[in-house]
């Protein structure tokens, strides 16, 4: 029985630890779709493993959305079917092609429905062997597992949200281009890594690049606008124009496809009865440390105090000798660095780098910031963690492709009853 459990648990890591192995050839059944399966951005995949190891040369088919794809499992048991669109597919394993003596475990649905959940790949595992019943996780374990993943996701959001909130607090700007600052981090990390740099160096360079983007943005765009006395709503619309321009500049250079950062297929770590991927755990620790550092800087250093003073009342801060423009410049640089780091972690969380990845979480970042109270840094942290937890935990009941809806609804409800957010002050809503 233990051996069987091991199969269940090993199935996924085995698939992910071997991304460099040749992908089994896929071919279209329908002549109408003459595109090569590999060209599709979305794919359904899995690994076939029996008691004695991987099972090769088994035919798997996926049907749905007017498309039919077919794949054969490779020597490591892995199979992958490229599909044109995300959606629900019926995945079937051809039991005639299974080696002698190997049958699907009891209770394993074949064919079964596989649904994409806002990511570019969907994984499904078929279990083999007699007497195996797939382990029905108990509710508390599922909850704990989702909560851990949600905490990791929430902290990742918090990185970007803290930057956004700092910028809002000091300048009053609701920055719609923050999503693109997130994307830039991941895209730069991908560019440096594919130029041959080790991933750690690439990440550091990408974060520095994000800081530079923040600096240049402030110096070339926002500072002149502030000095012209541009209102907050026009600045917000300018940031939308900037976001559009930046998004398509990224797509112009990066292309429309989804790429993977090195090491994006991490292994799964088991903590007691719950499991989390190594990448998610690393992401959780990294963002926790960084946020603690930012909190320390804000609470204990001169520049942190100056930042809070500017956020509170720029005119008074300027009168007491604080260089407001310098503080805002530093806030933009730090905001850019945090957003870039958030983008890299988001690329590992999804997983994948694409030109519109930042836009996808921009509203969740906003939700985190507004939940906590616009302009309050610790509010942004608390709000983001709530959003992250809510998104992940809601997948227990909600369809996975609706998981963002719950977070956005919560934001609207909070604004209804407590418009200043959880930690915000009444006066800020004007």
């Amino acid at each position, binding site marked *: 029985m233990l051996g069987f459990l091991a199969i269940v648990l090993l199935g996924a890591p085995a698939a992910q630890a071997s991304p460099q192995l040749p992908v089994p050839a896929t071919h279209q059944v329908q002549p109408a779709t003459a595109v090569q399966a590999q060209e599709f951005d979305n794919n359904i995949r899995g690994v076939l493993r029996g008691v004695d190891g991987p099972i090769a040369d088994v035919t798997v088919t996926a049907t749905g959305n007017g498309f039919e794809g077919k794949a054969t499992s490779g020597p490591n048991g892995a199979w992958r079917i490229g599909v044109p669109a995300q959606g*629900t597919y019926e995945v079937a394993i051809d039991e005639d092609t299974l080696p002698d003596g190997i049958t699907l475990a009891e209770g394993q649905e074949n064919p079964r429905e596989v649904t994409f959940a806002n990511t570019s790949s969907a994984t499904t595992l078929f279990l083999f062997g007699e007497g195996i019943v797939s382990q029905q996780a108990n509710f508390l374990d599922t909850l704990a597992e989702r909560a851990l993943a949600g905490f990791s996701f929430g902290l990742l959001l918090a990185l970007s949200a803290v930057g956004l909130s700092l910028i809002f607090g000091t300048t009053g700007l609701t920055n719609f281009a923050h999503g693109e600052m997130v994307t830039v981090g991941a895209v730069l990390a991908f560019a440096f890594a594919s130029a041959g740099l080790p991933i750690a160096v690439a990440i550091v360079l990408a974060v520095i690049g994000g800081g530079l983007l923040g600096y240049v943005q402030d110096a070339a765009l926002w500072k002149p*606008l502030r000095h012209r006395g541009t209102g907050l709503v026009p600045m*917000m*619309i*300018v940031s939308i124009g900037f976001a559009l321009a930046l998004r*398509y500049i990224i797509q112009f250079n990066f292309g429309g496809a989804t790429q993977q950062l090195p090491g994006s297929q991490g292994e799964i770590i088991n903590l007691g009865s719950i499991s989390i991927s190594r990448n998610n755990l690393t992401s959780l620790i990294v963002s926790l440390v960084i946020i603690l550092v930012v909190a320390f800087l804000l609470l204990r250093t001169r520049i942190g105090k100056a930042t809070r003073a500017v956020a509170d009342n720029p005119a008074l801060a300027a009168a007491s000798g604080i260089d407001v423009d310098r503080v805002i410049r530093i806030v933009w640089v730090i905001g850019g660095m945090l957003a870039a780091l958030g983008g890299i972690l988001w690329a590992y969380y999804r997983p994948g780098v694409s030109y519109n990845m930042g836009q996808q979480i921009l509203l969740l970042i906003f939700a985190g910031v507004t939940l906590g109270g616009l302009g309050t840094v610790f509010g942004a942290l608390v709000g983001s963690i709530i959003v992250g937890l809510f998104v992940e935990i809601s997948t227990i009941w909600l369809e996975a492709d609706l998981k963002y809806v719950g977070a956005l609804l919560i934001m*609207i409800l909070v604004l209804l009853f407590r418009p200043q957010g959880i930690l915000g002050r009444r006066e800020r809503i004007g």
Partner: protein
Amino acid sequence: MDFGNILVNAFGELISPTTAAYALAALGLAVHFGYSGLLNFGQAGFMAVGAYGYAISTLSFNAPLPVAVLVALLSSVVFAIVLGIPTLRLRADYLAIVTIAAAEIIRYIVTTNGLTDVTGSANGLAAFEGGFYGLNPFPPGRYNIGPLGMNERDFWIRIVGWSVVIIACLVVWLLMRSPWGRVLKGIREDENAVRSLGKNVYAYKMQALVIGGVLGSLAGIIFTLPRGAVQPANYATELTFFLYTCLLLGGMATVLGPVIGAMIFWVVLSLTQGLLYGAIEVGAITFLTNSQAGQLRYILVGVALMLLMVFRPQGVLGNKKELAFA
């Protein structure tokens, strides 16, 4: 490079049903933002409500055309009220975030696989336009508008689309010069002053939100009819941002501004596409692929939106005194 063809294509965009839909939706935004100062970033959501309301009532309930249109408009009224209750008391930037979130919620809901039977999920719905083309009084044949030839279906949708735009412009013009419209403009300038005159600011804002939303959902129907399909990907936040570009191009507190803005938007997009593709074809530009040329145009849209907002916030037709912000 065929300049004649490029110009004909640009002229085609000038009168295309998509331009009519953009003009109508931007007119709705003018009612929201230009006249009332409501920063609605969820116009794409209103368009989606209109398009899906029409398509679902036609396909799932076999509703005849007038009923389907009525259902679409009523759903957008309901959406506006549901959206307005929590948000209209909030400051402008909160309102922007909530409306953009509401539009995205609509898009996630029509995309979800759980509702595939009703909404068709990511693939959307198709084949609901029969009732509309069934009303076509023009016999089959070729029809010419200027240098542009088209069949009777394309001719019919253009006639209907632009008639709706003209009627909507008239209605908005009449509304805005009525006492009701003056109160609305007063709210835009100084909410508290209007409140002190004993007007119910909240109710006026709600009425403006509903009227602009109804225009948006009409635009959604006109947008989706010539395509013969409604797909959630068409109603993402970028659509709203493009509408804002149209609105700001033309002038936000004007009736004709959004229409002219939408025309400029599409003609410029078509011209740049024609010129870039032509230059790539003859080898004058070698450093761009066709898809990069497409993205270059949208980079220009973003830059244009920034420059407009900074240097000419009143747009082509607008009056600088009538801005929703100081």
